[in-house]
């Protein structure tokens, strides 16, 4: 286990082939994300963006190569440990439908603390978990008193995505993975959403891996990576499996 002080994510000689495929979907020589670094990952749909995220989140395992996240080599983890690793260290935001419709806004935000001791401990360091959830919701510019008791389904998509960010950030996981979180938003809310996301990722001290096919957003990130540039497996015909 190599603990690299500056990298939160490090991939070396990574090869991944979907079962039944002849050609590799991903063939990445080297890729890394530094501490607190905000990385924009772009690439056309089907280029293997979600596959890469699944590998980093230990949902999939590569055939070759090594992935180290926050000092942990993922190939040393067993099934249950992978789940624990994920909830302890990674906050996730998806394109949409991030929230449980039957839980209140607050309960949705606090959900990871139910499954991770580590994040529960971090979230309750200076005050209660509920207060931390409220702080995050306020930081995401959500009208707390107004939405606190409303069903999440009554929130606008933009508001739902901001609640999802608050949930990803609770307990300050070292890495935030955002998979096309803005694609359901219009361009005005998109910029505002990004600004809030950046501010809170900064406060939490987390690194951010942000995936989108919308290259116009890339400007505000520390670094922009095109997956087609780092992926040697270019003849990629297989598209559906990563959706």
């Amino acid at each position, binding site marked *: 286990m190599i603990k690299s002080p500056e990298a939160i994510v490090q991939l070396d000689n990574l090869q991944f082939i979907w079962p039944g495929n002849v050609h590799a979907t991903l063939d990445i020589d080297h890729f890394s994300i530094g501490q607190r670094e905000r990385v924009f990952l772009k690439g056309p749909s089907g280029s293997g963006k979600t596959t890469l995220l699944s590998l980093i989140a230990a949902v999939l395992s590569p055939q070759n190569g090594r992935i180290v996240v926050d000092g942990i080599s993922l190939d040393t983890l067993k099934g249950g440990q992978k789940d624990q690793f994920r909830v302890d260290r990674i906050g996730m935001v998806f394109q949409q*439908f991030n929230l449980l*419709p039957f839980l209140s806004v607050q309960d949705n935000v606090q959900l990871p603390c139910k*499954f991770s001791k580590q994040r529960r401990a971090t979230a309750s360091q200076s005050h209660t978990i509920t207060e931390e959830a409220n702080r995050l919701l306020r930081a995401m510019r959500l009208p707390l008193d107004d939405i606190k008791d409303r069903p999440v389904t009554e929130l606008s998509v933009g508001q739902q995505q901001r609640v999802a960010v608050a949930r990803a950030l609770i307990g300050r996981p070292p890495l935030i993975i955002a998979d096309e979180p803005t694609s359901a938003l219009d361009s005005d809310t998109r910029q505002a959403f990004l600004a809030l996301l950046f501010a809170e990722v900064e406060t939490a001290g987390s690194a951010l891996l942000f995936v989108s096919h919308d290259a116009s957003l890339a400007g505000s990130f520390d670094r922009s990576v095109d997956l087609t540039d780092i992926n040697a497996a270019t003849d990629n015909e297989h598209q559906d499996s990563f959706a």
Partner: protein
Amino acid sequence: MIGIAWRSICNRWPTALLAVLAIAMSVALILTVEKVRRDARSSFTQTVSGTDLIVGARSGAIQLLLYSVFRIGNATNNISWESVEDIKNRPAVDWLIPISLGDSHAGFRVVGTSKDYFTHFRYGDKQPLKIAKGAIFDDVFDAVIGSQVAAQLGYEVNTPIVVAHGTGSVALVEHDRQPFRVSGILAPTGTPVDQAVHVSLEGIEAMHVDWRNGAEVKGEGTDSDTIRRMDLKPAAVTALLVGLKSRAAVFREQRAINTYREEPLLAVLPGVALQQLWNLVGVAEKALLIVSICVVFAGLVNLMSVLLAGLNERRREMAVLRSAGARPGHVFLLLCIESTVLTLGGIIAGLALHYVLVALGSLFMQNQYGITIGLAPPDLTDLKILLAIAIAGLLAGTLPALQAYRKSLADGLTQRL
């Protein structure tokens, strides 16, 4: 986890309610069937109590029980009055009730007996017969009718009635020369006594004064007063209910009667004969039980189908939980909690429904048959049934839970829609 599971159920309350309802129905049904079964059995075995021996002409134990107590079927032969006197004079015998059958009134059996019937006959938990209106027969032409006879035919005290020969519901030949009069109406018992017309043994003889060889003698017939002055000592009776001074003597007396030399007789212990008869009737009871077990099974299958059908539309919910850190084990647990909550809800609702059914049923039984059914708390058998259903509900929940577990493993964090 319980909080999440509960709110998830509340979110899908219509389907959850259906599952609960299906289980509630099956729980209520099986409990009610069980109760009816047990009550039927106990009321069946309590049709006659306090009688030590039933004596009749030699036939089968069940046949003797059927015609003497349940008034079903006919006796093959009678007991001569001399034998009755002999049995009466045995030192161990405390009392005996003669029963003479063979006539009917509007489809109800006419039972010729003595006044001892009203003092010594016991049913249920050793309860004596009670006169609700009027009095026990005193005159040759007096009749004491059961509660159902009175209710169905609308008879009151002093209503004149005509008795028919034979036992069909269509009067074959009516003994209309000697009309009887209702002297008393018995309180409801919930036994065949309610459906009987009781007259004295003399009354039975009086009916047949003008009859020879089963046909009515032509002519004016004998008038009532002449008959009253006649010697109406019966020549024979159909059966005897015998009470002994000490129950310990029952087997000795039974043997003595069965080996009686003057006439072929049969003495049976009512409890033993009732048990034999119940074993015959018990097939229906088992069928009833099997049907209700099937209903419980159907309820559980429904629970399972509700959970399984819900899985596909809840795939997103599972994926959200997974992405928020829930492990496949949590998803499994979630489904198990859900099936437990639904099963327990169903059991509680079913128990309530059962009591409503029993309360309504007992009201009906009280009105119709005068039988009181108690609202008892669930006994050990009921609790065992409920426990079995609860366990079965949990098992029914594990299959969908396992399915959800596998799906959430296979789907990973991707949100398939």
